[in-house]
């Protein structure tokens, strides 16, 4: 974020460098049930992002002293693979950024999962970023929501989101890597369309009141498109299960 000497031009002839319109999302595809061992899983391909979400649980709590007699504990883990970025080899495991993202992702599912149905248990939600291209946290949580449903864990809604940015003074949906790095603002959010609530909300940059309001509206518009892809993924999974069963 912010200025830099080698900032590329992000808007050319009234369009984004990728050719996208200001509110267009990148290509997005989700596949549910891609792993055998996990209780639920999903792979999301969003722009160049490739993120794998896997869910285990409800299962016994580890470490035991964390057990909550009233509800299931949500354990979310967002990690970027060391080879996931265009830049140099990263360090493996969580860093400060990924610990913060894991925390806000956990809060989404503390709201979204019917945790009171499974006291004294833990649900692990793993999000591994295998290739990153901007907007990984919203993509990861979007995939995780599909993985939870794939695991058969009761949730209030399919949750999803998009990141809204500002590049060269224009507000745009679904920032890619360069737009994120060199743009003036970034507001990633995850929403529940059924309840109208924002469940993950982060922002940095510099926005006026009107711009904040516009960004929120763009988030909900983007979420509608993302939701369709989640539903498609789950439908495809169930249909394949059904045809396997018939054989």
């Amino acid at each position, binding site marked *: *974020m*912010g200025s*830099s*000497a*080698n900032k590329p031009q992000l808007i050319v002839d009234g369009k984004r460098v990728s050719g996208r319109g200001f509110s267009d999302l990148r290509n997005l595809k989700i596949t549910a049930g891609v792993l055998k061992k996990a209780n639920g899983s999903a792979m999301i391909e969003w722009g160049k992002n490739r993120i794998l979400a896997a869910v285990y649980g409800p299962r016994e709590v*580890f*470490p035991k*002293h*964390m*057990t*909550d007699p009233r509800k299931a*504990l949500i*354990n*979310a*883990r967002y990690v970027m693979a060391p080879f996931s970025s265009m830049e140099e080899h990263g360090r493996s*495991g*969580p860093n*400060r*950024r*990924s*610990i*913060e993202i*894991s*925390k*806000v992702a*956990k*809060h989404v599912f*503390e*709201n979204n999962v019917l945790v009171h149905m499974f006291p004294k248990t833990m649900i692990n939600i793993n999000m591994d970023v295998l290739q990153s291209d901007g907007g990984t946290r919203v993509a990861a949580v979007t995939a995780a929501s599909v993985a939870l449903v794939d695991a058969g864990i009761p949730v209030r809604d399919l949750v999803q989101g998009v990141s809204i940015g500002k590049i060269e003074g224009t507000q745009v949906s679904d920032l890619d890597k360069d737009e994120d790095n060199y743009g003036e*603002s970034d*507001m990633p959010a995850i929403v*529940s369309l059924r*309840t*109208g*609530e*924002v*469940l*993950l*909300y*982060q*922002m*940095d*940059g*510099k*926005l*006026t*009141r009107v711009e*904040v*309001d516009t960004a*929120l*509206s763009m988030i*909900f518009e983007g979420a509608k498109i993302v939701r369709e892809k989640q539903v498609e993924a789950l439908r495809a999974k169930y249909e394949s299960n059904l045809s396997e069963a018939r054989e």
Partner: protein
Amino acid sequence: MKATCQKQGNNGDEKMILNNVKEAYITDLIRKGKRADSRAPMEYRPIEVETNVFENCEGSAIAHLGDTKVLAGVKIDVAEPFSDRPNEGVFMVNSEFTPSAHPQFEAGPPNERSIELARVVDRGIRAANSIDLNALALPDGRVLGVFVDLYVLDHSGNLIDAAALAAMAALNNTRIPKYEPSSDEKKRGKLFRTESAGQLDIKSNVIACSFEKIEGTTIADATDEEEVASNGRLTIAIADGEYMVASQKSGAAGFKRQEIMNLFDAAVSKYAELAAHAKKR
């Protein structure tokens, strides 16, 4: 596993029984439209900021929000610039939840709450371009680094707002030590910490306002007991009285679009009161 299994405060057996009692008490009050210290929902506790509390660091401040005390210490050092930003100084915020500050704080590496606090404060100041990083370039190709360490001394709730206030006040009262480059360009020059090369120039004042949601009611400047009863928090950092420069939702509660806008307005309306304490002395 390490990162995700950190202590949550709300967990652990004996802690939880006490927390449940507190939670019931606070929620009951909120339902009746009251707060334990009889404040209005959007009212802050008395705010006080002391600056230049230490001599050795280049800047320092302690922010008090009621009984909450957060200390910010600023050190200026010579640093190597990041490869993609060769002419920009380095700015870094860290935080330490000292075990002295609260019975549930434990010594050890920063946990997720501590990391979140530091990163939210960092984002606000960075996004507002409060510090002109280009002005921190040194003649020999090196740059100055501005390192802010936030020490929570006494946790009675609303640490983010107190930390943001302490950081801003400390930065507004930070001196830049004199730098003399070495004759050998490969070697780092020397900082003369007792000789001042002027004050750190702050372009924009940033404050943070955090709102906790308890039983559907939103309150500002929550105490630690109110935080135990809270379902979630929205922090909004405001620069220059009108811009949102950082925001962070934490906790399970969701916030509707209109609620976020209302809290944006509430944060803007608190700006003058908070910023007055952060400004230069």
